[in-house]
């Protein structure tokens, strides 16, 4: 606030050196050594984690594949505001850019970028650029003569917005939104809205998987924590065994078990629980994703729970019992509250892992059990719309961070025990 504090006499060492300075000096060596020890990991994290994530965040708001290849249009758009008539000068700029694109072979790249916003326009760019050398002014008639599609105001609006390399359009797309002809942000046609549904499904499935893991892991962890060490170590191997097996092997073994002609269905038919025509569909849908992922993520719930339960002495429950509590009351009021740090850590871990899970839903999810990460992978590998993939991934990251923040507010991150 105000400068009313009295200047306290500075503490000095016996030699008259200020105490703070002496402290810094005496600890400098130890600090340097500590830093050198950490340096390799620090560099590794920087190169493999911070930089790629920064790159991804940047990609989600930056795409210059059109703005860099169409300088003349960029100039024209900056000189003519939104709503100006698309006249001869605009087509002249387009023709000039198409020529540049043809020389640099970038028409496909530019077309792809516009294609994100207006479907089917990539071929417009490639086909017109192919013929651009033979065209003569006036450019408007000439270009429209090649393809009437250039007359679409949506296309011109898309090109205008694509000349800004920094854009939030990918986030809009990731949130099932778009711009109408007046540049207002509106929701897309409901039957084209897919990402919102996928985010929701991802959250719901992750929640179900987390709850299932919790229910399954709690008794196991309790058993592990209360058995003598030799026996609990043996049992721990069974818990960890899936960890040591390849993810693919585990997932495919679930396929063997769960598919319609699989072991489980055969057994059910043989037992007469279902008849041969009514074989259960437990694979290539949500059920398959839930079963396989619960199994795979179970250890992440067991381990934090176990490490917390191990530290709860049996005397607490005994004390509660001796004080007159039934075993259920003792469990609910004494044991369970003390396992909360483990439950919290395990649930957070499992939820975050399953929100971003890719391989298992891809293999056993079918169309119904796909998660948002499968869509991100699709945009990375198939549609090559990396900016949209980055936007989706960033939203996912933001969701996880919000969850983390909520957890911190509700439970406190200091209370978390990961093992």
């Amino acid at each position, binding site marked *: 606030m105000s400068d009313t504090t009295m200047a306290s006499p500075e503490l000095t060492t016996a030699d008259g050196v200020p105490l703070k300075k002496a402290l810094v000096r005496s600890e400098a060596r130890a600090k340097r050594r500590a830093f050198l020890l950490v340096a390799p990991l620090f560099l590794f994290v920087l190169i493999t984690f911070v930089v790629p994530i920064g790159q991804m965040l940047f990609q989600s708001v930056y795409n210059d594949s059109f703005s860099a290849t169409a300088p003349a249009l960029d100039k024209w758009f900056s000189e003519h505001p939104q709503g100006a008539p698309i006249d001869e000068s605009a087509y002249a700029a387009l023709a000039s850019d198409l020529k540049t694109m043809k020389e640099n072979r970038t028409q496909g790249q530019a077309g792809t970028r516009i294609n994100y916003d207006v479907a089917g326009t990539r071929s417009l760019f490639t086909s017109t650029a192919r013929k651009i050398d033979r065209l003569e002014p006036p450019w408007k008639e000439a270009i429209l003569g090649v393809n009437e599609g250039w007359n679409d105001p949506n296309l011109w609006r898309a090109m205008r917005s694509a000349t800004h390399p920094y854009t939030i359009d990918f986030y809009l797309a990731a949130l099932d939104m778009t711009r109408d002809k007046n540049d207002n942000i509106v929701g897309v046609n409901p039957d084209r809205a897919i990402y919102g549904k996928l985010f929701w499904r991802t959250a719901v499935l992750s929640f179900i998987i987390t709850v299932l893991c919790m229910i399954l892991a709690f008794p196991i962890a309790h058993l592990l924590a209360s058995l003598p060490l030799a026996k609990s170590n043996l049992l721990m191997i069974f818990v960890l065994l899936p960890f040591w097996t390849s993810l693919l092997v585990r997932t495919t073994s679930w396929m063997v078990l769960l598919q319609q002609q699989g072991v489980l269905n055969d057994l059910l038919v043989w037992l007469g629980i279902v008849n041969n025509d009514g074989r259960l569909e437990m694979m290539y849908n949500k059920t398959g994703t839930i079963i396989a992922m619960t199994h795979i993520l179970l250890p992440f719930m067991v381990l934090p729970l176990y490490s917390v339960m191990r530290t709860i002495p049996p005397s607490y429950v005994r004390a509660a019992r001796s*004080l*007159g509590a039934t*075993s259920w009351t003792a469990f609910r009021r004494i044991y369970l509250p003390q396992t909360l740090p483990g439950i919290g850590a395990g649930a957070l871990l499992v939820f975050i892992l399953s929100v971003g899970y890719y391989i298992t839903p891809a293999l056993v999810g079918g169309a119904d059990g796909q998660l948002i990460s499968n869509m991100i992978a699709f945009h990375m590998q198939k549609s090559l719309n990396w900016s949209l993939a980055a936007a989706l991934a960033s939203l996912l990251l933001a969701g996880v961070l919000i969850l983390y923040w909520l957890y911190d507010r509700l439970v406190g991150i200091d209370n978390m025990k990961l093992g």
Partner: protein
Amino acid sequence: MNNAADGDGFVVFDRVQKSYDGETLVVKDLNLSIGKGEFLTMLGPSGSGKTTCLMMLAGFEMATNGEILLDGKNINMVPPHKRGIGMVFQNYALFPHMTVGENLAFPLEVRGMGKDERETKIKRALDMVQMGDFINRRPAQLSGGQQQRIALARALVFDPELVLMDEPLGALDKQLREHMQFEIKHLHESLGITVVYVTHDQGEALTMSDRVAVFNDGRIQQLAAPDELYERPQNSFVAQFIGENNKLPGTVETLTGDTCTVRLETGEIIDATAVNIREAGQETLVSIRPERVEFKPEMMPAGAHTIGAEVLEVIYMGDILRTRMRVAGSDEFVMKSRNTLDQVRLKPGERLKIGWHPQDARALDPM
């Protein structure tokens, strides 16, 4: 030697046996009757079966054989929460996620007691241990001694007639421990409750108890009041375990009624009281308390045998002087004398005659 269960005690162990693995008995044939209002301590080294007995009484372990009676009723099959026994645990077992008040309210809540009555009882229990101001603290914010008091208050808040304590003072420092010993003792007296107390600290057992049951090897070795236990141990184990003790091995020379003479390994003959020896000629271990050893001729009882000793070391301990000497071939013979104004200070290397009243030398089994 064991007190046979007479059936009219408040707590009765009747031929109780306990085995965990079906091969060895941790508790072998325990018969014990505890009167109402009594402070009984189970004392013994670790693994002697004392904690197992307490756990069986609390209901956390099942007796493999025999009956445990509480107020005349067999409680073998009664689950712990229906026994109504207060218990103080070794590490207090205060619920860390509850405040002191909530900890104390817990036994009352599970009994379905109303809020007003709860508050009165909690306040009374906290005042009893002088912790009234700490009702809103969490156990982690309390010192060890304070936690101990809260644990005590929690075990007493629902007015149990029987309170079990499992080494409750083990985690406290010496001064606090001694202070708490008196407080527990006073609480016991003022409330008139029955206390069964488990400890391996013989000092604690002697200061607090009405009677002490010394456990070893799954059996009660001796059950007696503290003074009786200290002054008249019934066997070598009890003599060793309670207090400091000099032991001189030898052979019984003559045996007349309660008194005997023992020829030590180096040939000297000493007088002793026969405790659990049967006949002349058998091996024995003579036990003498260090503070009952005398070296001034005028203090010796008439007619007592004396024995030569060589001073090896004098340790100054403030209130007493501890003199280690060589007696009958043993280098570990200790004599304790009070550090009075006129006390003679012996020097290492000095040779002298020492002796004791024959009643203080007890010829016991050779272990």
